[in-house]
């Protein structure tokens, strides 16, 4: 049962797996990695018992201060470093963690333990004064934002004294010593249990208020101490393509924040393999173990500190649609998951995006490129360029396919964007109005094509290839992929057809002619009217019953067969809706 450090604290040492309700999900996954024999930085957990006692009393319960002292002593001993002073300072992360992951809880505080003295020590140890200063600055900013809830403008070169002064100007203060800071951070975690957002979420999801959150305090490890240090991210399979080979990035002599900041260019994992073959092998072995244990592709953060590998976090990897499909089918073939699990891991939305129309192979070869822009929303649109949103709406209503080209867009253009087959703008990037609204509408969209680049094309027929970021002169051939042309989609379709609570047939099926066609029914696009319009029909078709909500409504209305251009998304939506209803 881990190592007890008093009434409220446990040291995680991998000897046994404590209850998730007592230590929270984050500490639990740390403990589980340890129990698999994987290297994890030393960690202690302040249990949910402490949170409950705190919430009841409105203050730290008796004994918790002593347990915190014991927790620090254990971390110092396990890491060989000291909190707040010494030549090898201990810095820790402080994170919230309830048994059930929930929004509204306190964000992680990193680098707690840094002050003027430890900044000096860290500068000497790493030989990098700038890193030590950045660590100090980042800690103060994070503590101010997360624990004190101060609003500070972030400045890259601010000096710690200036940041403290700015915080004090708001009537707040970062406590003087790391020990007091730790108290503040733990208390802030407890308090976040009752944040507006967390309370609302628990109420909505019937999660008891009495559960409480634990606090995980973990030693920070440093990837920038010497040439045998570094940091990186590893996916147990490629999350973009689905290829089974592990995929990752490594930053030699760098700290985790450097990877995120984008200031440095990471190298592929082969760089780690060349420099430290034994570490690389250990990492591959850990990735394989974690993937088997979790039954899903993992996204693993790791750091190498002076030649020792540490795993910081492992979770199910986010994946592009193509990868979601390949992972699911491959893992069934490998005997790792069953077909039901595979189907649950591919969403209707992911399949829809794979089946979107695209430029036919080679269609753009040798065709004049009129403009290039940043891709905001993928897809392909062919139409005549118009530069006014009212005109776009008018010509769309008259049956024309139009591409809306604007210098920028504003809310006055939304109706034109809805009418357009594609939207292209001259200014603005991925957060511009056109990009945000284009994605919200699912309209193929390119932004930032350059001054006078696309509005000058008014009246021309163009092809906007928003998969490649190119506007071509003339109308090019567009093809719509089909499930049966892709072996993996075909397999998923077969599995889904066996399990879905309703039947889906293609538009070419002889029976499709008998379907009640909602595309020709007034009001079918209104979700509130749909149930009444579906009632009494065994077989239906139309855009209204191809969305997730439309499929759920059809199932609820007793529809037996849906006619669809693409069966798989409808089948997946039907399986989901069936699960939700039961």
């Amino acid at each position, binding site marked *: 049962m881990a190592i007890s450090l008093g009434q409220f604290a446990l040291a995680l040492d991998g000897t046994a797996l404590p209850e998730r309700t007592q230590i929270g999900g984050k500490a639990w996954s740390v403990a589980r990695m340890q129990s698999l024999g994987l290297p994890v930085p030393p960690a202690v957990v302040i249990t949910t018992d402490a949170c409950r006692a705190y919430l009841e009393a409105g203050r730290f319960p008796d004994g918790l201060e002593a347990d915190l002292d014991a927790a620090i002593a254990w971390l110092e001993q396990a890491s060989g470093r000291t909190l707040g002073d010494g030549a090898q300072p201990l810095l820790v992360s402080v994170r919230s963690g309830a048994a059930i992951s929930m929004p*509204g809880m306190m964000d992680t505080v990193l680098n707690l333990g840094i002050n003027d003295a430890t900044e000096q020590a860290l500068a000497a140890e790493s030989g990098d004064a700038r890193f030590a200063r950045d660590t100090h600055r980042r800690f103060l900013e994070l503590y101010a934002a997360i624990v004190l809830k101060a609003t500070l403008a972030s400045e890259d070169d601010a000096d710690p004294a200036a940041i403290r002064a700015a915080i004090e100007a708001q009537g707040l203060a970062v406590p003087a010593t790391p020990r007091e800071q730790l108290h503040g951070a733990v208390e802030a975690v407890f308090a976040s249990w009752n944040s*507006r957002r967390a309370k*609302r979420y628990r109420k909505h999801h019937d999660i008891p208020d009495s559960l409480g959150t634990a606090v995980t305090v973990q030693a920070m490890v440093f990837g920038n101490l010497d040439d045998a240090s570094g940091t990186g991210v590893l996916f147990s399979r490629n999350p973009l393509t689905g290829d089974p080979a592990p995929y990752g990035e490594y930053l030699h002599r760098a700290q985790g924040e450097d990877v995120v900041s984008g200031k440095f260019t990471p190298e592929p994992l082969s760089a780690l393999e060349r420099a430290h073959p034994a570490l690389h092998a250990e990492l591959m072995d850990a990735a394989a173990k974690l993937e088997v244990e979790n039954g899903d592709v993992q996204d693993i953060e790791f750091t190498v500190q002076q030649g020792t590998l540490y795993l910081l976090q492992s979770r199910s990897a*986010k994946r592009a649609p193509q990868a979601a499909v390949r992972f699911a089918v491959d893992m069934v073939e490998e005997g790792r998951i069953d077909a039901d699990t595979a189907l649950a891991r591919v*969403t209707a939305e*992911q399949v829809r995006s794979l089946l979107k129309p695209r430029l036919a192979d080679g269609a753009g070869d040798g065709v004049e490129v009129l403009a290039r822009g940043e891709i905001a929303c993928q897809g392909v649109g062919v139409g005549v360029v118009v530069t006014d949103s009212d005109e776009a709406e008018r010509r769309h209503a008259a049956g024309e396919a139009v591409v809306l080209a604007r210098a920028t867009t504003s809310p006055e253009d939304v*109706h034109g964007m809805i009418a357009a087959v594609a939207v292209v703008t001259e200014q603005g990037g991925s957060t511009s109005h056109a990009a*945000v609204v284009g*994605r*919200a509408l699912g309209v193929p969209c390119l932004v930032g094509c350059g001054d006078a680049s696309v509005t000058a094309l008014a009246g021309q027929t163009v092809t906007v290839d928003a998969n490649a970021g190119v506007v071509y002169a003339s109308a090019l051939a567009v093809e719509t992929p089909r499930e049966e042309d892709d072996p993996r989609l075909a397999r998923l379709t077969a599995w889904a057809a066996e399990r879905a609570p309703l039947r889906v047939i293609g538009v070419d099926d002889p029976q499709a002619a008998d379907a009640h066609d909602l595309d020709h029914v007034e009001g079918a696009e209104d979700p509130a009217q749909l149930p009444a319009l579906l009632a009494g029909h065994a077989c239906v078709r139309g855009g209204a019953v191809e969305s997730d909500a439309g499929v759920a409504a059809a199932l609820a209305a007793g529809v037996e067969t849906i006619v669809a251009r693409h069966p798989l998304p409808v089948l997946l939506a039907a399986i989901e809706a069936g699960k939700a209803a039961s």
Partner: protein
Amino acid sequence: MYEAHLVLHGVAVKKHGTSAAVADLVGLPAERVGALLDAAVAGGRAALANDKYLLTPAGRMIVETQYSRYYSAPRADAGFSAAHERFEVVNNELKQVITDWQTMKVGGRQVANDHSDADYDEKVIDRLAGVHDKVEPILRAFAAVVPRFAYYLEKLEQALEKAEDGAHAWVSDATIDSYHTVWFELHEDILRVLGREREE
């Protein structure tokens, strides 16, 4: 007449809005707004299509020339301008949050968020709530000078709460009064009141 201007302004901000939506936005009784809209259509300042109104080119010109007359007070008010400066800072944050809602990083590359990762989505909605906490005092500062800005606070809160309760369309769907839709109308409204141009 101020009310006639206000209704044209409402149509300018809520383009393709119904009479009820315009009444909501400008805070006038529905009947009064209906009568003013009828008059605007009769006078060639607005056009009606499928129960929804939009300004004619003449209507657009008229409403734009009237702003300086009706909003000299907020334009001269230091508190209002200061609130607008803070709004522009929070606006950049909002745009980033909405972008992170619609896209996500996979293996170091930005791809469309297909909403298959609930933890990721909940974290973004957390950040949206953080933006809301910041914009609330700013909107109160606006409303202290131009009371009808209180409407946006209410609409933003409604959208946020629906999103928090799991109806995710209320984050950025462009066809409903989602958080992003209302935010953009709010931004448009402020810029019109102050006579400023939008910057991308």
